[in-house]
């Protein structure tokens, strides 16, 4: 999670610290990286870098599972209001594209207590996590059909 240098200092959070990020919908634990080029009242991150252990065929100790996090845990599926029987709720996404509402989410950032490390929430590994994976990957063994080559002799 990228945070402005001055904002992080004001919150007592250092580069690389584990933090709790909370919205009205949920919370997650992630590491922050301080940065100059981000607006002081904004935090940002890459999309979908967190994975359930075993996803993508990765081992359970892959950083995608241990340190990667997913912002979706903070984003409600519906807009607030109109709660009650017989009412229709509005989807919390762009009405044209259907994309999730990433850019208007208010969050609170706090430093984790000592010992609170690792991405959270965590999930049970997928069955694929148990599959044996090669320690070294070499393309000729895993020839990529997507690469179009001319039939040079």
């Amino acid at each position, binding site marked *: 999670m990228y945070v*402005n*240098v*001055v904002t992080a200092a004001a919150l007592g959070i250092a580069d690389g610290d584990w933090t709790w990020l909370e919205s009205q919908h949920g919370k997650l634990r992630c590491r922050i990286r301080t*940065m*100059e*080029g*981000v*607006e*002081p009242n904004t935090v940002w991150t890459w999309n979908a870098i967190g994975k359930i252990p075993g996803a993508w*065929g*990765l*081992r359970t*100790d*892959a*950083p995608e599972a*241990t340190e990667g996090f997913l912002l979706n845990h903070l984003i409600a599926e519906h807009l607030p209001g109109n709660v009650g029987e017989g009412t229709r709720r509005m989807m919390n996404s762009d009405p044209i594209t259907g994309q999730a509402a990433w850019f208007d989410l208010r969050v609170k950032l706090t430093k984790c207590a000592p010992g609170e490390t690792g991405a959270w929430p965590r999930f049970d590994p997928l069955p694929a996590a148990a599959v044996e*994976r*090669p*320690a*070294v*990957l*070499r*393309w*000729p*063994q895993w*020839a*990529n059909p*997507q*690469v179009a080559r*001319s*039939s*040079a002799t």
Partner: protein
Amino acid sequence: MKLGLLIDLDTCVGCHACATACKEWNGASAISGPLSDYDPYGADPSGVWFNRVRHYEVGTYPDSKTINYPMSCLHCADAACVTVCPTGASYKRDDGIVLVDQDKCIGCNLCAWACPYGARELDESTGCMKKCTLCVDRIYDERLPVAERQPACVLACPTHARHFGDYDDPDSAVSRMTAERGGFRLLEELGYAPVNRYLPPRAPPVVLPESDPIVAEPATSASALMRLVQLARGALSR
């Protein structure tokens, strides 16, 4: 002939498409593959790359800027990596491309130590040195459409920040852009005469203080309008 790349640091957005396209093409290439990956599914994945993109921040908010800086072999005219090679595996072709003969390389690492740019990486699984080939198996391939006879990184770049051409030809696109926009060589003072050039990034955008009239009383003020015109002119002249 001096074939090389011209990389525009102004338009590069640091997306790594060049690096992955390079790995996709060259990792399965008969002359340069494999580009092995170590622990690819585990806790600390790493591997061999011809091209890596670094990111740097300069300045402090709000006058800061991120510089994305892709680096691959610069195909030096005076290539120290070729000079130090004890087996003759590293060689420089007449067209300027520096290559490694994988059959002659003994993986001694001397060339990697000699290279001041960190452009060479040893493939631990084959014991041979790997480096950018300028996609020599693309650029001369007459079976490919003419427009595709370029390195994979150049074709992949979504912002057209990468250009390929002959620096010996003063009329080539890379020569002209270098002349027009102040293209520069990396660490030129070391004397290896790198062929690849970089176009410099723009100056960071002007951010006005809160007290500036254009911020304090926008829209209606005539002076603010003049200020806008000045800003626009300034931006266009950069």
